[in-house]
């Protein structure tokens, strides 16, 4: 099966810093993959390259067989690691904006999710707390019927109750021909719902394996494994 997201010998430099260093990674359709790694290991860079926001210095990137560009942006749903919605808009406005921008956006689904999370239609983005802004942004991103979801820290500032709702939303919404890649540090919260984990260390792929295989082989949870590998 053709991978949804495939990078080959991918490198990206910020001056002398190697953010990604000859990285090879392929995501199969139907998989929910956790992108793990310590701070500065290249997670956000990898996600931004997939979203078409950064260009690689070396190597190749294919999304559904295409190089990043307008055509891939139509099939990639990207959640940035910071707030990127216009602060003067209300929830209702941003729903309309997404529906104008993305052909695969399901307005009804977005409204349902916003309602479930008790988010008001008329509140301005700028007047929301950080966690609430993140929830709105995630509702929008998950309401698209994309081929590839790139979620950068979707759970960071969100309370535990909403976290559970968001995880089950991700589980319910991804389909067999789409893949989800999401970066997070909350490993113990999410490892049960993942198919696979990809762990980065200093821009290189340390490991890409199924969660159950890793648990079986190492006799510990992914969380414990991570702490052992990256002990400070």
């Amino acid at each position: 099966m053709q991978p949804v997201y495939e990078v080959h010998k991918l490198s990206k430099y910020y001056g002398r810093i190697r953010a990604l260093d000859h990285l090879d990674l392929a995501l199969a359709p139907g998989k929910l993959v956790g992108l793990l790694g310590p701070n500065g290991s290249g997670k956000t860079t990898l996600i931004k390259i997939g979203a078409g926001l950064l260009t690689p210095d070396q190597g190749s990137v294919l999304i559904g067989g295409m190089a990043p560009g307008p055509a891939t942006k139509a099939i990639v749903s990207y959640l940035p690691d910071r707030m990127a919605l216009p602060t003067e808009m209300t929830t209702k406005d941003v729903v309309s904006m997404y529906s104008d921008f993305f052909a695969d956006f399901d307005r009804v689904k977005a409204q349902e999710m916003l309602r479930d999370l008790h988010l008001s239609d008329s509140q301005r983005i700028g007047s929301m707390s950080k966690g609430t802004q993140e929830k709105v942004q995630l509702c929008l991103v998950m309401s698209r019927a994309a081929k590839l979801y790139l979620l950068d820290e979707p759970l960071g500032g969100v309370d535990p109750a909403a976290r559970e709702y968001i995880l089950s939303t991700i589980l319910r919404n991804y389909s067999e021909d789409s893949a989800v890649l999401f970066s997070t540090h909350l490993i113990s919260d999410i490892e049960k719902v993942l198919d696979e984990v990809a762990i980065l260390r200093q821009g290189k792929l340390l490991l890409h394996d199924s969660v159950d295989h890793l648990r079986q082989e190492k006799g510990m949870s992914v969380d414990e494994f991570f702490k052992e590998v990256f002990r400070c």
Partner: protein
Amino acid sequence: MNWNITAGRPVYVQLIEQLELAIVTGEYPPGSRIPAVRELAAEAGVNPNTMQRALQDLESRGLLQSQRTSGRIVSANQDTLHTLRVQRAEVYVADFLRQMHKLGYTQEETLELLQKATFPTVSNTKEES
């Protein structure tokens, strides 16, 4: 049903164990239909692919049977249920004895304690799910 996935062991192994237990204890009695994969996965908070893998394992051992259009039903017969119950009991006993051993009890002392202990009399205490 009550799911409890712990760290350290593969998730699908734990799902298999807990589904087996639900079948043995009659939570899913023979002939009954079990919920759909996605529903079970959401309930347990696990990935649907992992749940699917666990269900397929039970299916391959004849405990569940796939109905072409209407999901899965519990197809375990009384013999299989009996075997499973015995296996499970042996696991519990071995586990109990290991812990008693850790506490420094001998076999005799343990048996003596067991003789004195009272077995729960109300057998149909239904657990809330």
